[in-house]
């Protein structure tokens, strides 16, 4: 029973990993671009949620959408003002730009909100569900289910809609897409919006059960990198499986080996995979 409990906990966390990594993988797959500020997008999503709850008294649905919307806008702004100009420059300039952006966002949040830890006031989500002896805290359960639903939604958006196929067309071949009458700039701005928006909503979902401060983005960013690399570049389903697997491995190794080993196990697995299947679980060779 305890084991089942551990597994459920790991999967619920993994679902969130999946959601906030899918944005990173989208950018990576579409534009071959590493966004080092992705963790900061998650962090900002958390603060948006806080502001909505504290100022407007919003509930989980409200602050989720607010975070998604606010970060969508930020993502588009970042694309239009910065990424568009560096994406075809040297790779180093790309790394520098988003790393600088990460520092800028992190410490702007630091300036505005101070270094203190905050947590979301107890909102309507609380309590614990008992399913056959397995205890599931409602906030985590809702967050986990919502995260999976959103990740799947993003996947469907990419594979089943016109907008999605246009996005993928741009990713595939920019010039060909242009000839087909697609405007790559718009599509890429949209991709950044979607990526940041999904990070924002993931942040809002995390905020329900996790206290944070402005430096939280660094941890999230690193986790997202591992998830994305494990899942395969540009693959949203890959990110989803990898997120769930990593959540599960962390929980199990924390339980069996001790919590300090959980990251070692994840990274060691990552290193092993690098040797055996460098393109990631779902990545193309």
């Amino acid at each position: 029973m305890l084991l089942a409990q551990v597994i459920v906990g790991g999967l619920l966390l993994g679902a969130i990993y999946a959601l906030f990594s899918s944005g990173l993988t989208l950018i990576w797959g579409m534009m071959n671009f590493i966004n080092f500020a992705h963790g900061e997008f998650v962090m900002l999503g958390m603060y948006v949620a806080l502001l909505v709850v504290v100022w407007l008294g919003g509930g989980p649905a409200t602050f989720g959408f607010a975070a998604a919307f606010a970060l969508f806008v930020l993502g588009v702004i970042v694309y239009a003002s910065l990424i568009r100009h560096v994406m075809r420059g040297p790779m180093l300039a790309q790394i520098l730009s988003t790393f600088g952006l990460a520092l800028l966002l992190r410490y702007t949040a630091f300036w505005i909100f101070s270094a203190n830890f905050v947590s979301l006031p107890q909102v309507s989500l609380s309590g614990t569900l008992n399913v056959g002896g397995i205890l599931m805290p409602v906030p985590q359960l809702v967050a986990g289910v919502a995260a999976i639903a959103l990740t799947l939604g993003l996947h469907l958006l990419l594979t089943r809609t016109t907008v999605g196929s246009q996005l993928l067309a741009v990713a595939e071949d920019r010039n060909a897409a242009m000839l087909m009458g697609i405007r790559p700039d718009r599509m890429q701005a949209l991709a950044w919006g979607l990526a940041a928006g999904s990070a924002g909503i993931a942040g809002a979902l995390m905020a329900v059960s996790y206290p944070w401060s402005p430096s939280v983005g660094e941890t999230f960013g690193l986790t997202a990198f591992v998830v994305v690399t494990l899942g395969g570049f540009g693959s949203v389903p890959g990110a989803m499986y990898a997120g769930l697997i990593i959540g599960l491995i962390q929980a199990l190794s924390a339980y069996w080996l001790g919590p300090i080993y959980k990251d070692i196990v994840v990274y060691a697995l990552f290193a092993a995979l690098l040797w055996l299947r460098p393109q990631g679980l779902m990545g193309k060779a």
Partner: protein
Amino acid sequence: MKWSLPALAALLLFYPFILTGPFYWDIGVAFLLAAISASAWNIVGGYAGQVSVGHSMFFGVGAYTPLLFYHLWGLPPVAGVPAGMLVSLALAVAIGMPTFRLQGHYFSMATIAVAELIRIFVGTWDLVGAAIGLQGPAVGRAWWDLTFRSELPYYYIFLAVLAVVLYTTFEVERSRFGYYLRAIKAGERAARSLGVPVRATKLKALMLSAVFTSVAGSLYSIKTGFIDPESGFGILVSVQMVIVAALGGAATLFGPLIGALLLVPLQTATNTWFGGGGSGLTYILYGGIIVLLARFEPGGMHEWWQHVAPRLMRRSHAA
């Protein structure tokens, strides 16, 4: 402009007499360390175009071994330097073999992950001090402990190492190896078609880079007299190397030096002016400047100067 290289050498040589006092010497040492690390990184990250964001793994190994030798066997820290170089070399081979089969950003991501793995692992390993870290001799037992009261000896030791690294880079740049690195960066497929052994050359570059980075780490820990997982293997250590090199101009001999010359004083100045206030303004400025540079001068200051200098020259001739 013929005077500029000797002038520069003289300036670095006499800097401690121009700006005197331990604090300025310490900044000088910090500048040299940043320049050494970034120059070491530049060999693989700049010339070969294999952007490692995990070079802290070599820096950390180099930083740990000297203090470990002291901690375990009471040996002078300097004795651990070659061991660090060897371990870094082995690590470079272990990382390079699988990852150099891949292209593009995979290498960057893989290096981040491996550096993180090592950081977390060292943080739980009691033999190397786990999370608390290791200390060097608080007071030097003899000169060979290299524990000086003044920053001045460190300045000249670091300067000598920088000279070695730069001279090596200079030689590499002119040699077949250097041409091959640049060819690989420009296009692996074309390089291969001309008989360039791509993987072996990349691996060789990583190994050379790793050894120098390891030495930089050793210098750091011997001078600081302390090392812990974060200051040895933290991601900021890696990122600093990338930023310094990119800022000055990657794949150029003096780019990392220029980058360090801009960045270290910038960090010191923003920290001096705004650090005490504690509002985070240091990083807002720092981050902002990096973003602006990447946006408007993606080739680094070196390239910027190449655009600007001729125009300035023309203007001064016209005047």
